[in-house]
């Protein structure tokens, strides 16, 4: 028993150490390395036709703000080159009327209404929007986002590379003065985008499409029949589908967009739990394919598998702590105390992908937020909370995956058919 516990702890320490090295590699690359600008020299010069899909469910407070921003976007709007598809997803408030009002006001805004739909999910709403998209590139913005006027120009620039299937922009919280939680989440966001995503882009690894402030070639989405309507992390799923089919995704740090972050910690917990379950489904679906893929380079495979394990890490952490305490109290071999101390140190420094503290420091430095970094110790409590939430989401996702509770992938045949019909001679 003692030997088993010690071996388990050693394995956990090795895994945590691997994540630590990965994060420090990212930190070093972003802070001191050469930065890859994702074809930003083509901004303004390259303007392919763009469809923007905005899913909205009971968003009467924020929908006009997003639609106003998209209406005043600095992008050529002639000959249908720019269209906004506002999807009213079974809303019971005034979202439906707002969407219709904008569709009447602007010729490039289309209103799509989903009512009494069989599948009530964001990816299902996105698929509904996709069936009305006519343009080469499809971008996605959630209703509570505020894109600046140059956002679309910057996001489409990487598509000058024919191997690029998708892009992802930077997300910046707008409501940071609202609550302390918002300020701490701002640090987490900064590290996740400014350092983590940019470093993965620099190093040619797996930059992730995050579900909003980004998009794909319509041809690629059609080949995948759109998004999995039942998936809780359709963004991660489509990211891996892109890389495993030989495409690339680019991260565009300059394409910044405001978002509203949650201001209550329990609401953040609900978000993380949902993302965790969805992300773990992706891990079950894609980890072996990632390792076996002939299209991915060695380090892309390593990063791909580690990225898939992001929401598995909290469970690993918790298991490590429990085993470490058990080993220390009941059956300590001569090296256990040292190991335990080492593990706690590593654990403090990294929890999966949830913003390594050095990455936060680097992000604050790059953003010139000299004082915000003082809030860093408050991340400790958030990290502990994530460990509990993440562990629960791993157990939930595992049990759902092993039983019949998880549904099979469901894309949109209609979208693929319409795309193929349009392309057929």
């Amino acid at each position, binding site marked *: 028993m003692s030997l088993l516990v010690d071996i388990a702890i050693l394995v956990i320490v090795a895994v945590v150490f691997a994540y630590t090295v990965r994060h420090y590699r990212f930190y070093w690359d972003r802070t001191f390395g050469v930065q890859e600008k994702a074809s930003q020299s083509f901004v303004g010069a390259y303007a392919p036709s763009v469809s923007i899909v905005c899913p909205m469910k009971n968003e009467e407070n924020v929908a006009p703000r997003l639609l106003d*921003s998209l209406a005043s976007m*600095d992008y050529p709007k002639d000959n249908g080159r720019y269209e906004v598809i506002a999807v009213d997803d079974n809303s019971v408030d005034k979202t439906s009327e707002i969407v219709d009002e904008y569709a009447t006001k602007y010729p490039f805004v289309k209103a799509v209404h989903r009512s009494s739909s069989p599948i009530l999910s964001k990816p299902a709403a996105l698929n509904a929007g996709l069936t009305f998209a006519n343009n080469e590139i499809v971008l996605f913005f959630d209703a509570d986002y*505020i894109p*600046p*006027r*140059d956002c679309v120009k910057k996001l489409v620039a990487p598509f000058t590379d024919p191997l690029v299937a998708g892009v992802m922009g930077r997300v*910046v*919280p*707008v*409501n*940071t*003065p609202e609550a*302390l939680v*918002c*300020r701490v989440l*701002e640090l987490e966001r*900064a590290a996740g985008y400014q350092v983590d995503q940019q470093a993965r882009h620099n190093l040619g690894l797996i930059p992730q499409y995050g579900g909003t402030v980004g998009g794909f070639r319509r041809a690629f989405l059609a080949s995948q029949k759109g998004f999995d309507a039942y998936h809780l992390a359709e963004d991660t799923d489509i990211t891996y589908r892109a890389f495993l089919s030989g495409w690339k995704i680019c991260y565009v740090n*300059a394409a*910044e*967009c*405001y978002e509203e972050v949650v201001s209550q910690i329990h609401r953040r917990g609900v978000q993380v739990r949902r993302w965790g379950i969805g992300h773990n489904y992706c891990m079950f679906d894609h980890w072996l394919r990632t390792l076996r893929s002939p299209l991915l380079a060695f380090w892309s495979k390593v990063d791909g598998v580690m990225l898939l394990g992001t929401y598995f890490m909290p469970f690993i952490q918790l298991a490590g702590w429990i085993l470490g305490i058990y080993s220390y109290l009941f059956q300590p071999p001569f090296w256990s105390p040292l190991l335990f101390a080492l593990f706690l140190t590593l654990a403090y420094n990294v929890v999966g992908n949830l913003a390594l503290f050095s990455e936060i420091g680097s992000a604050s430095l790059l*953003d010139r*937020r*000299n*004082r*915000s970094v*003082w*809030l*860093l*110790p*408050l991340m400790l409590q958030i990290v502990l909370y994530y460990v509990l939430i993440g562990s629960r989401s791993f157990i939930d996702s595992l049990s759902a995956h092993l039983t019949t509770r998880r549904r099979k992938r469901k894309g949109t045949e209609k979208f693929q058919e319409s795309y193929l019909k349009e392309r057929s001679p």
Partner: protein
Amino acid sequence: MMEYLVLLGVFAMMFFLSFVPGYLEYRLPRDPGPLHIDLSRTVEPRSEALHFRMSSESLGKSQEWTPVPPANMPQWTGGALTYQRELKGDGGSFKVLRIDQDLTIPAGTTIESAIIVQGNLVSEQDCSFREWVYVKGQCQIGRSNKLTSVASGSDMIIGEESEIFGFADSDGNVRIGEGCIVRGLVGSGGKITLEGSCEVKKLNGRVIIVAKSGG
């Protein structure tokens, strides 16, 4: 037993000490959010200067200014209506003066504080500005001046052999005199004219005119 309690106390103190800076930043935020994104931005290179100008304008309109007492009034203001306030920066606090009318700064003056001029600004030769300058109207910098950064809402002229360590940005036209050194971006909503040989890191204007040396 006692030594364990002392150790525990020291540990607890160190633990809670780590939260003190965070608490201070939360109570008196110096990095007030959100992180700036210029929603009207279409040209990226000038965003720093544009942000600076927007901040300076809103700072100028704020209510926390106090009139400078006559005894402390710097001579170079020439008795103009002047207000002051303290601002906190990376290297500690610094003073900002707001002058609510046109201003002419005599030759050889050194200005330690940042200045916001609500009218036009003219500086004579050999002036030195230790902090930034924001001018709402026209800005005419004299020969051999030294500045950190300067922005104006109307035309700007930088005199010969002046040196700017940051950016020079104007909504109107900008003329850069011969022998000038600008270590940051020269941005303009109109045209930028370089009068002869000068050293500029980057230019961003609608039209760039390079005049021959000496005219």
